[in-house]
Structures are given as structure tokens and as C-alpha cells.
């Protein structure tokens, strides 16, 4: 934050204005007969951290390429701060981008890499030197200014790429799996770095990843892509707790999902009974129709295991088929008696928590609010 204070007034003002608002209208990309991105519309607010996740081939990188400008959309508009950027060539869009492999210029030093966008914009030499210093300070690489990219670690190269992508105050910052090449510990560290960086700049970030935990940690909103379409957009919490489809429920976190056979009807104003495919009956909160063709979904931490389960609205007995202690949680797979459905269960170990062995009989259950119905 000290760096923020030391910045010149003009810089501080433009930072305070934050990133641009982006609205995408019916943007699509078709290759011959293959629709890489179906007509997609989405609004991204100024200063939003917007993550796009999905399996490879789901169209997320194509979408990013169209915003950056190196992939021509088949149709649609990308409006940044009220201006459609689709007709503009890539080099006039004033967009920042961090590439998966960083794409640092190998023949230029760290300082020259970071200075490059300013040099192109004809910024005065002393001004360039000052801003490069500030920018490198922001990513804590002042001491590495004269190094070559090949002399830096992956995480340091990543930070140079961040500095280079943001030094010219682009309207939006795009990131294409920027942490894909780093190992686990470094990734966690860099996630925090990126979050801090984005908040300091107030930048609008569009972030593509296939790592759902990364997206949940970083993003204000997440879009889940599948077969070229955004199947669901929402906050990390809403996506996890109210997934609309089996795909979203399984893509984001763990879940036990069962086809619904019949809806037996209302019990009270607020609850109804449904029957799962294997015959298990369970009571859920009404609101969504749990008819055939739909799926019942329950998250592993919502299931109670042990004696406490007896008092719940849905109480069963089951057999532990798998029991695994992992740091921070105990994972089970429990088969319900006389039914056969296998539930994934995650319990938080307290000092007196009983660990159930494989083969033992347990009480298991959940309340009416724990199971959600998926439309598809």
C-alpha cells in the first residue's frame, strides 16, 4: 500500500477509477461445423474478478482469445466502457494479458520487458524508468530488474508478467491459466499475490482456469463453461450450494448425486417426500419439483455420521465401505442398508470425534435443507 501512496496524482486517479465494465453480447465462434463458443452474453462489473472455469475444450480459452483480440469472433460484441472493441485490432485494445507460459521476451531483461508497453506508447524515458521501478516494487522484484527472464524462477517470471500486463493501466486484465505451470505451494502463494494485486489496482480481471479451487479462492463471480456455453454464472458460494445441473455440482467440489424416481408429494407446506432410483425415500425442502429425470445432490460435509444423525429428518443406517483419514477431514463412503446407494461423507475431526472403521455399521442422516434438486 505504501507504493500506492507514492504514486503520482494522475496515476492514483486513474487507479481509483478502477477497471472497465465489460459486457459481452451474443459473442460466438464457429470453426467450420464446430461451435467453439455458442452465442454467449455476460455482464462483468468494473473491478470484478471474474473467473471462467471448465474442462479443456469447453471454449474458455477461445472466449479469452476473442476478448484479447487474437481470435476473430464469428459474431457478437464485446463492449468495454461503452465501446465495442471487436472491430479494433489487438494492439489498440489496451487490454492487459498474462499468458499461461508468461510469454516474457527472452532476449530482454526484466526491466526491459516491463518497460516495453510504455516504450511503445512513447512515454518519456525518465517516466518509464520511474514507473518500471514502481511496478517492480509492487511485485517485489526491484532487485531483479537487470536479470534475464531465464534467470528467474517460475513464480518470479509470473510476477514480471503481472507487472508487464498492468503497467500501462489496461482497461481489463486477462489471465489465461497463469498458475498452470507452478507447483502446488507456489500456486497457493501466487493466488494470494494475484488477489492482493487485483485489489490494489482495482482492476477488472477475467481469469481462465480449470482449477475450481483457484477460481473459488480468487473470484467474485465464476462462470462454468461446458461445450462452448456458460452453463451457470454466480458467486463461488451460490455455485457450490445451489448448482443447477449435475455437471456444475460435480465440477465444483464433491457431491453424491442420485437420479430421482418419483416425487411422492407434499408432506407439509414446506417439505415433500421423494424416492430415489434405488428406493431410498428422503424428505426435502419444496421449491423445486423433484420429479423423474431430475437428480438429488448432497455435499459430503452436509451428511451427519454417528449417533447425532438419529434425530434428523432423514435418518438411516449404513455400512462404512471406505474410511480414510486425511489432514483436516475424515472421508467415508457409506452404503445405505436395504438400498445400495453409496454416499460420500466428509466429517471434520474434533478431539473426540470417533473414526468409523471400514465394515462398521453407522447412523447416518441429513436434514431437509441439505439435499438439492438438479434440473439436469
Amino acid at each position, binding site marked *: 500500500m505504501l507504493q500506492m501512496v507514492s504514486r503520482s496524482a494522475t496515476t492514483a486517479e486513474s487507479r481509483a477509477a478502477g477497471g472497465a465494465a465489460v459486457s459481452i453480447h451474443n459473442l460466438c465462434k464457429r470453426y467450420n461445423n464446430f461451435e467453439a463458443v455458442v452465442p454467449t452474453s455476460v455482464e462483468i462489473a468494473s473491478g470484478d474478478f471474474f473467473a471462467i472455469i471448465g474442462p479443456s475444450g469447453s471454449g474458455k480459452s477461445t472466449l479469452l482469445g476473442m476478448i*484479447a*483480440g*487474437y481470435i476473430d469472433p464469428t459474431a457478437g460484441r464485446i463492449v468495454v466502457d461503452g465501446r465495442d472493441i471487436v472491430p479494433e*485490432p*489487438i*494492439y*489498440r*485494445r*489496451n*487490454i*492487459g*494479458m498474462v*499468458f499461461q*507460459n508468461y*510469454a516474457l*521476451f*527472452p*532476449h*530482454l*531483461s526484466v*526491466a*526491459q520487458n516491463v*518497460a*516495453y*508497453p510504455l516504450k*511503445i*506508447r512513447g512515454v518519456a524515458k525518465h517516466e518509464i*524508468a520511474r514507473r*518500471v*521501478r514502481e511496478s*517492480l516494487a509492487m511485485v517485489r522484484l526491484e532487485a531483479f*530488474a*537487470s536479470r534475464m527472464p531465464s534467470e528467474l524462477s517460475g513464480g518470479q517470471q509470473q510476477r514480471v508478467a503481472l507487472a*508487464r*500486463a498492468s503497467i*500501462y493501466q489496461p482497461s481489463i486484465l486477462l489471465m489465461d491459466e497463469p498458475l498452470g505451470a507452478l507447483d502446488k505451494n507456489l500456486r497457493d502463494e501466487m493466488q494470494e499475490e494475484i488477489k492482493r494485486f487485483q485489489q490494489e489496482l482495482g482492476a477488472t480481471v477475467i481469469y481462465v482456469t480449470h482449477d475450481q479451487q483457484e477460481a473459488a479462492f480468487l473470484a467474485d463471480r465464476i462462470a462454468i463453461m461446458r461445450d462452448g456455453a456458460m452453463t451457470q454464472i454466480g458467486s463461488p458460494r451460490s455455485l457450490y450450494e445451489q448448482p443447477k445441473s449435475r455437471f456444475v455440482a460435480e465440477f465444483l467440489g464433491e457431491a453424491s448425486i442420485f437420479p430421482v424416481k418419483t416425487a411422492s408429494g407434499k408432506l407439509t407446506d414446506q417439505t415433500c417426500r421423494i424416492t430415489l432410483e434405488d428406493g431410498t425415500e428422503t424428505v426435502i425442502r419444496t421449491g423445486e419439483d423433484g420429479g423423474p429425470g431430475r437428480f438429488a445432490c448432497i455435499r459430503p460435509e452436509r451428511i451427519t455420521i454417528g449417533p447425532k444423525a438419529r434425530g434428523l429428518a432423514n435418518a438411516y443406517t449404513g455400512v462404512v465401505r471406505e474410511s480414510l483419514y486425511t489432514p483436516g477431514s475424515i472421508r467415508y463412503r457409506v452404503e445405505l442398508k436395504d438400498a445400495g446407494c453409496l454416499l460420500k461423507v466428509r466429517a471434520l475431526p474434533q478431539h473426540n470425534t470417533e473414526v468409523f472403521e471400514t465394515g462398521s455399521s453407522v447412523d447416518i442422516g441429513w436434514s431437509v435443507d441439505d439435499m438439492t434438486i438438479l434440473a439436469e
Partner: protein
Amino acid sequence: MKHRSFLLYLPVALLLTPFFLAPMAVIGTESFSGQHGVGAEYVKVVTDQGIRTVLYNTFYVAAMVTILSLLIGYPIAYVLARLKGRWATIGIFLIFLPFWASTVIRSFAWMILLGRKGPVNSILLGIGLIEDPIRFIDNGLGLMIAMTYIMVPFIVVPILNGLRAIDPNLPRAAAVLGANPWRQFLAVTLPLSMPNIAVGCTIVFVTSLGFFVTPSLLGGDLTVVSMLISEQANRLLDWPLASALAIIVLLLTIVIFALLRLSQLASRRRDKARSGVFA
């Protein structure tokens, strides 16, 4: 460790000793065994005006051919690097197609094409671009055209390899950062292909120094050193002078490349010092 890594040079040494160093040693010895005393041949090479002109012609033609090959070869390599799949294969095939005919035949072909009454002059006269036929053969112009034509594939291949090795994200990154296509080329593509340009130019330059058939056919009055060496060795049987000429050409080539290498190192050091401004 040290004596083991030395073993890695062994295959190269085994190849170079019988096929390069030993013959050069024989030629070196031969060059000092003239009848006019030790070193007399070298004095003659350096002082004889005729020989000096031949040496100058040789290096001048080689340098011009290198520059022309680079100017023509780089755009060809650039286009080939952008072709994909089947088109890339066809492109490479076309580049190597001329090799199916020997240099002798291709040089004769150029002799006919560039002759006073050849097709090139006929066409230029026909469309009224010139009033008198251009003299290609006597003055080295035709020679440089033919040699450039022969050498272009040798510079295209290393540059093509260099361009293909450039991460496509780099020019893309330059574009996102605000560089138009021409600046992308200057900032990324050109500097990153520089080592391959150096390799291509070296191959063309060194090969051009040794051309014999093409200058014999198309050189006209212009004599290059390979023709002089051949004349001394085969017709005048002055082996010591021929050997001294060969050694001088070798030494001059080594000096030129040493200077190039030194200037490269110096500019790299300068770059590094300049980037320190921001530190």
C-alpha cells in the same frame, strides 16, 4: 569431471583430424616449401596486385551474395514458417526442388538466361524498360545473381527453423501490449531469429568463398580465388603458391568471423549494461 567432459570432443576430433586438420597441415607445409625461400609465396600473395584483386573480388562477391541471399531468403522463410500442414511440406519441397539439377547445369542455365540475347534481356528490351541489352556476364552481376539463386535455400532452412522455434505467444504478447505487426516483428521475431540469421549467413558466406564452377562460367573477366588456385595447381603446377592462397583465404575467413563474434559479444554486454539503467 573435467577430463570426462573432454571426451565429448572426441567424435569431432576423430572426424576433423583426418579430414580437415591433416590436409590443412599438408597444405600448410607445402606453402612454405617453395623454391624462392620460406615465406616467399606469402609475400607474393600479399604484395602482388593481381592476386590482391582476386582476393578482393572473392570476398566482395561472397559478401554481396550473403546480403542478397538474406534479403531474399528471410521473407521466404517468414512465409514458410506461417504455412501449416500440407502447405508447409509443399513449400519446403519447392525450396529444395532446384537441388535436383546440378550446380553446373543451373549455372549454364543462367548463362543462357542472362546472355546478351537471352530471355531476360529480350523481355526487358521488349517491354521497353531498357534500350541496350544489360551486360550481366562480364562484370560479376550475373555471377552474383546465379550464386544468390543457388545459395538462398541454404539460408532459408536455418532461418525457417529459428522462426518455427519462436513461441507464437511472444508476438501475440507484443500485440496485446500495443505493438502493431511491424513493431512485433522488430521487437520479437527479428531479434529472436538473429542467431539463425548468423548461422545462415556463415554457411552462405563460407560456401560462396569456395565457388568454382559458377564463377568460371559466369564470371567473365572477374576471377575468384578458387579459379586462381586451380590454375596455379593444375596448369602452372605452382603448388606452394596455390597452398599459400588457400591458407590466406582460411585465415581471412577466421579473422572475419572472430571480429563478428567479438562485436556480437560487445553488443550483448552493452544491452545488459543498458538494462541496468532501471535497476
